[in-house]
């Protein structure tokens, strides 16, 4: 149970006190109204005689309004606290995952879970709990008073009461399935929407827009159906409650009329008093049933969140150690990793000397990026070990490790924010000069000069778009700013023209002077300069060495550089 522990005891106490006062005002209100009418209608009292009662009544109804307000506010606060905590919990669940798990599932669904599903737990705190308390106190008080006045009416009410838990049980069951369906549809069309949104252009170009539109239409119609299903239960239960209350009200009225006229056992005042109070009894119960209904929906939402939170995360563990010397030496001993059943990286062993420049080459899909992820410890090694300066990698502190590392991935993400922010994220302590300098090193100066706001131009989602190569350079600037001792590059210069690349290669060489540089490369001229080339094929290392050696002896390498017949040819036509 996720929601219950989120309410403080204090809240229950406050709500109970408010409900007790509310019950008192309801009873007092009915009593005063009756006494006023009786005085005028039957006792022929003068107007001035009823003035005190009128004054008191005014006070009572105002107090009742005040209690209503308090009740609402208490519920609201309880809901707020709970929603804050819940969002926090779900988010930290998401942020614990290693990168391969985090990309599973649709982002739209996750965002909806964080925002809308959590929102749906609101009514548990703001409706269900307050009404539940109110509905145990108020009707009991009313019933007690009615019994003191006329026990027959009390018995009638008591006879109809058992129907109420019965209906609640039915609502509970029905709502559960339906609201689960509703939440599923909600997640589904949110996921669908975000997924289509990021591929909008492709959908257009491939004539799939209409199909996608009808998919969105279908899922939102399904959502409508599910919502109506949930509501139908609520409406039906409200209808049934109404009928029950009407039935018993009718009986009470009849009984009162008989008592009043035929048997003369009841006075007008008593009869009227009961007639005013009995509906309040049923109103409280009707409120309860609708609160119960929304409470059930909240519970469904909470179940969904709970499922999410209970999903196991393969959390990476870290130690406390820090790097002993910089740049570090990295050693891989029989490292393997599998995304699913088959191993993507198999038994990889290699030694990367401190300060050396290592190129990883291999066909597309050979596992180069995965290997970089493993070295960066973005993914857990499934078997084998990685040593950094002879310390096992999992003994290092997370902060200590990532502080030494720059990793430019194959598709770096540009965050919504200024160019400045996007560069600064790699080193929050950097000064303006540092960032200027890093931007220059990354060849961004020509772009920045063109922009009105220069470095402070907002880019990323919601900002100015950049060309492919410009994004790549912003990401590179992060590395130049950080000056790390380990650099992992995943084809840092794809999408760059030769001129820009030439400039960048100079900067990279300078950056790599005091660092261990491991780069995935397709381009010949990068590979040639490497101190060591690791050749990968289908997840295995099939050769290590330098260019001249490998081109003579390694068949995979030869075929990779298109060096079958001797001359290098990397053109495509």
């Amino acid at each position, binding site marked *: 149970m996720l929601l219950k522990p989120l309410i403080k005891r204090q809240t229950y106490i406050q709500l109970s006190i408010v409900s007790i006062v509310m019950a008192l005002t309801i009873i007092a209100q009915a009593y005063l109204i009756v006494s006023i009418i009786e005085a005028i*209608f039957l006792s022929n009292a003068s107007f001035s005689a009823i003035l005190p009662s009128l004054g008191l009544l005014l006070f009572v109804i*105002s107090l009742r309004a005040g209690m209503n307000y308090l009740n609402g506010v208490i519920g609201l606060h309880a809901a707020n606290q709970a929603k804050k905590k819940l969002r926090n919990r779900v988010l930290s669940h998401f942020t614990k995952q290693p990168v391969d798990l985090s990309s599973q599932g649709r982002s739209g669904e996750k965002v909806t879970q964080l925002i809308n599903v959590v929102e749906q737990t609101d009514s548990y705190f703001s409706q269900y709990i307050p009404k539940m308390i109110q509905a145990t106190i108020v009707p009991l008080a009313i019933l007690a008073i009615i019994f003191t006045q006329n026990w027959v009416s009390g018995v009638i009410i008591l006879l109809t009461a058992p129907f109420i838990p019965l209906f609640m049980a039915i609502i509970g069951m029905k709502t559960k399935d339906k609201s689960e369906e509703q939440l599923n549809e909600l997640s589904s069309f949110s996921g669908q929407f975000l997924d289509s949104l990021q591929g909008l252009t492709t959908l257009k170009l491939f004539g799939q827009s209409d199909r996608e539109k009808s998919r969105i239409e279908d899922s939102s119609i399904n959502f409508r159906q599910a919502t109506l299903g949930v509501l139908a239960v609520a409406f039906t239960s409200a209808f049934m409650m109404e009928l029950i209350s009407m039935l018993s009200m009718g009986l009470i009225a009849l009984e009162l009329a008989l008592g009043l006229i035929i048997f003369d056992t009841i006075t007008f005042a008593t009869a009227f008093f009961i007639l005013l109070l009995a509906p309040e009894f049923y109103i409280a119960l009707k409120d309860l049933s609708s609160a119960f209904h929304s409470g059930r929906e909240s519970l469904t939402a909470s179940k969904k969140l709970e499922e999410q939170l209970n999903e196991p995360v393969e959390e990476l563990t870290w130690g406390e150690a820090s790097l002993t010397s910089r740049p570090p030496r990295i050693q891989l001993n029989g490292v393997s990793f599998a995304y699913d059943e088959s191993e993507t990286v198999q038994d990889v062993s290699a030694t990367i000397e401190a300060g050396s420049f290592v190129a990883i080459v291999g066909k597309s899909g050979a596992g180069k990026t995965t290997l970089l992820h493993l070295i960066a410890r973005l993914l857990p090694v499934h078997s084998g070990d990685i040593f950094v300066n002879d310390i096992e990698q999992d003994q290092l502190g997370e902060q200590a490790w990532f502080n030494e590392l720059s990793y430019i991935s194959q598709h770096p993400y540009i965050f919504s924010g200024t160019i400045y922010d996007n560069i600064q994220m790699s080193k929050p302590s950097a000064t303006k000069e540092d960032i200027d300098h890093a931007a220059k090193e990354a060849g961004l100066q020509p772009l920045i000069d063109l922009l009105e706001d220069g470095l402070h131009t907002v880019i990323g989602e919601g*900002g100015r778009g950049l060309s492919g190569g410009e994004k790549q350079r912003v990401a590179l600037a992060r590395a130049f700013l950080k000056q790390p001792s380990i650099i992992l590059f995943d084809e840092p210069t794809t999408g760059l023209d030769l001129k820009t690349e030439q400039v960048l290669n100079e900067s990279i060489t300078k950056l790599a002077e005091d660092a261990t540089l491991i780069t995935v490369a397709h381009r010949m001229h990068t590979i040639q300069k490497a101190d060591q080339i690791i050749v990968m094929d289908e997840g295995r290392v099939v050769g290590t060495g330098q260019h001249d050696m490998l081109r003579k002896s390694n068949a995979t390498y030869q075929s990779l550089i298109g060096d079958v017949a001797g001359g290098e040819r990397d053109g495509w036509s």
Partner: protein
Amino acid sequence: MAGLNIVIKQLMKEKRDVVLSILFSFIAGIAAVGLFTASGYLISQAALGVPITALTVVIAIVKLLGFTRALSRYSERYFSHRATFTMLSHIRVQFFEKLQNLTPSKVQRFRTGDLLSRFVSDVESLQNFFLRIFYPPIVLVLIFLSTVLFTLYFSFWIALLLVVGLLLSTVVLPALFAKVRQTTEQPVQEKRSDLSAQATELLFGYQDLKIHQKLADQSEAFNTANDDLIQAQTKERKHELLNQVLDGWIGLLMAWAVLAVGGWLITSGQMEGVWLAMFMLLTLTVFENTQPMAAFPQYFLENKKAANRIFFKEDEAVSEPTQPLGDAGAIDISFRGVDFTYPDEPRSTLKNVNLSIPSGSKTAFVGASGSGKSTLLQLILKLEEASGEVYINSQAISQMTPESLWQQTNTVMQDQQFFAGTIRDNLLSDASDEQLTYALKRARLSNFSLTDEVYEKGDNLSGGEKQRLAIARLFLRDANLWLLDEPTSSLDQVTAREVMTEILRDAENDTFVIVSHNLRGLENMDQIIVMDHGEVVEQGTFDELMARKGYFYQLKEIERDTL
């Protein structure tokens, strides 16, 4: 109002449900008033000791009214919610359609999370439009009119009181709140969008956040946005709560006033005592109907904003294009003095571009990063609209329906897009399984089966696999124009060459345009166009450009040096 007008239009598609909701709501409301009025009368008459038979009639009426009320309430709710949720599903589709019609650079101006929030939450909030804004006032007026007329028959003063109460709770109170609200308006929708944007960014940029140890910061930003949202919501809901409570209080107050005035009228002999209980109950009930009005201004403003966020304004296209591109084999393209500026940009990205790509020719675009190559391809595809004219087969592109153009084009964009689903889904084709498998094979993706799972954005594919999957899509289409933006930049040379050979086999007689940073193999191109800073600086065949010793020649020199 613009947004709300569209909402009303959507709502009116459900006319039948709208009318039924209003009808049943009125019946339910008036039945309730009748029910309590009759009970008040009943109890008073009973006290006076009238014959039991007369009372039975009243009791029967009470029963009937009660049943009518319950049934009508049920029907009202059913029809009104059906109308509402049907409308919402239409609006969702419309919103998506609207986004589809935007150019990519305009979509880029929104944050994904913001759009998601509009799609889910803002649309959801429009459910109040019909349920709380549109019909309650209509019903309220009808019910009050009937009630006041009925009361007028007995007492002018009490009728007047009802009217005063009505004005108080439907005009004065809402106006007061509307005024307060204007100064304390809470940007709940924006805050929710912020929160959604923070969450989306965290998920999309997860890997880079992790590497830069920024997950904690981003979570912090999320939590701050969350606090902001909750704070804004709290203010808003407290406001709403206060409205409701005050409105309920006014109802009670009016009943109290009826008691006081009635008491005075009776004691001074202007009214019979038997009516007092009846009017008191009547007042209590009739004011239940004003409840929805309390929050009217709040919902109205909120919905207006939501509607404008969903149906946001955009520059209208000058004229709807009407002409389809004729299907006449190979395609030629020409640019005549084309300028292009991205929205909200001070500088133009493409300047006075003149070029011609003859049908069946092979053209390569080269040039510095950021020089405008990808932009130029977008203009050919009419994804963005330029000034100056682009002609395709001598037809002006501005008059052309883009779908007809896309149908005849095979494109690989620089950033390929993929969808959560299977490989089959991502091939975006209705072709048979054999054909799909064959296309995969040609794109050197034979190790994948059609049912293999693809994550959102193709996150479980390697860089090169994505490019090859995007290329496999092309083998399933019959198009005359090929536009390839660095299609093999992440592939090793061997695979790149193999895939390229496959492409050229299909494109043999077609117009073929490629953007590439790889200068090898350009010897065989019919034309090379060199771009710099948004301008075409050189064009010609490989040999011509080499002979000119200009920009292209320099690039070749650099290439030679790096080896």
